[in-house]
């Protein structure tokens, strides 16, 4: 066994790149790249949270973007009502996500397989319509967040670099947490349930309870991403909860490598950079992206991480 595998080297390079990015942006004067990567980091966080239930838990949620909206609306609505403190906004965002995850998870986990995919999709779509109906908070048009979350001098979210590092810190913290969860007894039970639910139940684990807790944790992580996203765009609208956004998150996870720790981050970086690149190339970028997805599914087993792993062996 080699000490340094290809996938580890690529991961390390990417992480170093993410850490050093503001430096590059400062030196080159390219502010756009920092804005772009702030968004990428936030969505990577969302993808990592989805990976926890999808990759490790085997729960194929097609409604994860709902949490982006819930976290975002928690920030936006509180800001509109005059509560600007991040110390209130962020906990509320997490609590709201947890509550949504608890209710939706309890209902959805009664089903499995393709039913689960469709149910989570339908509930997220319901959340989308509810947000569209919130006339007081902009309805369809969305809600402008005039003032970013205020952390009373601790960190200034309006400073690009500080905000970027906050997002990156959150991403690393979440990945660390996922790593700890996956290797804990709890995480092993959840992974066991993915492989064989009946057998785990026969040993005496209450399957649904473990899965539900995992579902809620993942939702809270994604809610955090939502709260950051609303701060990043200074705006929140039902569009972030639209089902194609959930699809995007799924694609990021699969593209990077489901069930690997850093796969979703790589997936998010590659997917969003590709989107950026193609949309500069042609207005009709989805015309290329769509068939590309089809090809990735047909031929790219295990995503980028899987590819790197094969490179190492081959």
């Amino acid at each position, binding site marked *: 066994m080699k000490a340094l595998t290809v996938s580890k080297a690529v991961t390390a390079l990417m992480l170093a790149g993410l850490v050093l990015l503001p430096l590059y942006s400062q030196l080159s004067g390219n502010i756009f790249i920092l804005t772009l990567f702030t968004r990428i980091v936030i969505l990577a966080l969302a993808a990592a949270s989805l990976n926890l239930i999808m990759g490790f838990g085997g729960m*194929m949620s*097609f409604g994860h973007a709902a949490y982006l909206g819930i976290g975002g609306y928690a920030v936006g609505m509180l800001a509109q009502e005059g509560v600007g403190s991040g110390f209130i906004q962020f906990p509320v965002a997490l609590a709201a996500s947890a509550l949504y995850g608890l209710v939706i998870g309890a*209902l*959805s986990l*009664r*089903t499995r*397989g*393709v*039913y689960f*995919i*469709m*149910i989570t*999709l*339908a*509930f997220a*779509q*319901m959340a989308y*319509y*509810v947000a*569209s*109906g*919130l*006339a*007081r908070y902009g309805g369809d048009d969305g809600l402008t967040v005039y003032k970013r979350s205020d952390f009373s001098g601790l960190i200034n979210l309006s400073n690009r670099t500080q905000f970027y590092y906050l997002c990156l810190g959150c991403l690393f913290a979440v990945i660390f947490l996922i790593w700890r969860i996956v290797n804990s007894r709890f995480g092993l039970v959840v992974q066991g349930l993915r492989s064989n639910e009946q057998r785990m139940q026969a040993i005496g684990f209450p399957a649904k309870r473990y899965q539900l807790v995992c579902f809620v944790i993942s939702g809270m992580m994604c809610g955090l991403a939502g709260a950051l996203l609303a701060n990043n765009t200074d705006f929140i609208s039902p569009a972030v909860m639209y*089902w*194609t956004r959930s*699809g995007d998150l*799924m*694609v990021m996870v*699969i593209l990077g490598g489901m069930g690997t720790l850093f796969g979703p981050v790589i997936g998010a970086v590659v997917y969003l950079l590709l989107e950026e690149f193609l949309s500069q190339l042609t207005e*009709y*970028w*989805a*015309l290329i*992206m*769509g*068939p*590309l*997805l*089809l090809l*990735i*599914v*047909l031929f790219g087993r295990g995503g980028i991480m899987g590819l790197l792993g094969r490179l190492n062996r081959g």
Partner: protein
Amino acid sequence: MLLVVEQFLNGLQFGLLLFLLAAGLTLVFGIMDLVNLAHGSLYMMGAYFAATFAAWTGSFLLGALLALGATLVLGIVLEMAALRHLYGRDHLDHVLATFGLILFFNEAVRLIWGPAGLALPLPAWLTVPVPILPGIHYPAYRLAIIVVALLVALLLYLGVMRTRIGMLIRAGASNREMIGALGINIKLLYTLVFGLGAALAGLAGLMQAPILTVQIGMGENILILAFVIVVIGGIGSIRGAFLAAISVGMIDTLGRAFLPNLLRQVLSGAAASTAAPALSSMLIYLVMAIVLVVRPEGLFPANRR
């Protein structure tokens, strides 16, 4: 009274339309075990084809027939080019691949027809109100939708339950290796079933087109409703899809029509007018949640495997 009858018929019409969409979805899922998100795109293509062909030929009916044929062909081509390779793969792969197809179709439509929507004007004979009860008139076109959809539902039922092809389809659903071993060309059968599902989606799209505008993404919202119906009705069950589609169509339409007034009697005016739109759009999802709590497998699960 007038309003109640009218909304009742609207609900029935919407429900039948949803059935056409859900039937294709549930057939393809029940028989090929394929989750096809791009089903909504076929619905959209049906509408675009109809608007284009009707403008070319100058006849609504001719345009509709050509559009029906075109979606059938499109479905068959799509199956042979892409979806055939997904049979037997993980459901997640289906979701992603067909998600990619949605992106492709939306963009292709934008490229070909432009971002603005199209209109599909109705011929004069379909716009007249028809008296259905003494003193109550209903638009002829909506009545025509109800009649056509009921006819298609009946044909579908007879076709699946009473013909040789239908027998093969049902046999293929319960054991594909066995009927392959008996010398049936299962590949061709699957292609035909997918084409049939595509044509049903196209029919729903082209019939809905004169009521709504023909636009990009029109298939996506209605696809989610079709999913809800498939889940409520039980995956793979045509009968379940039919009953669930009628119920969802009714609940959605009647909820939107009458819920605001009902709420106004309980809540204050302002609270009611904020809660009503959100609540009425949530209604069918609540129904789905209740069904799931009571019968996680759907109301009429097809007895398979």
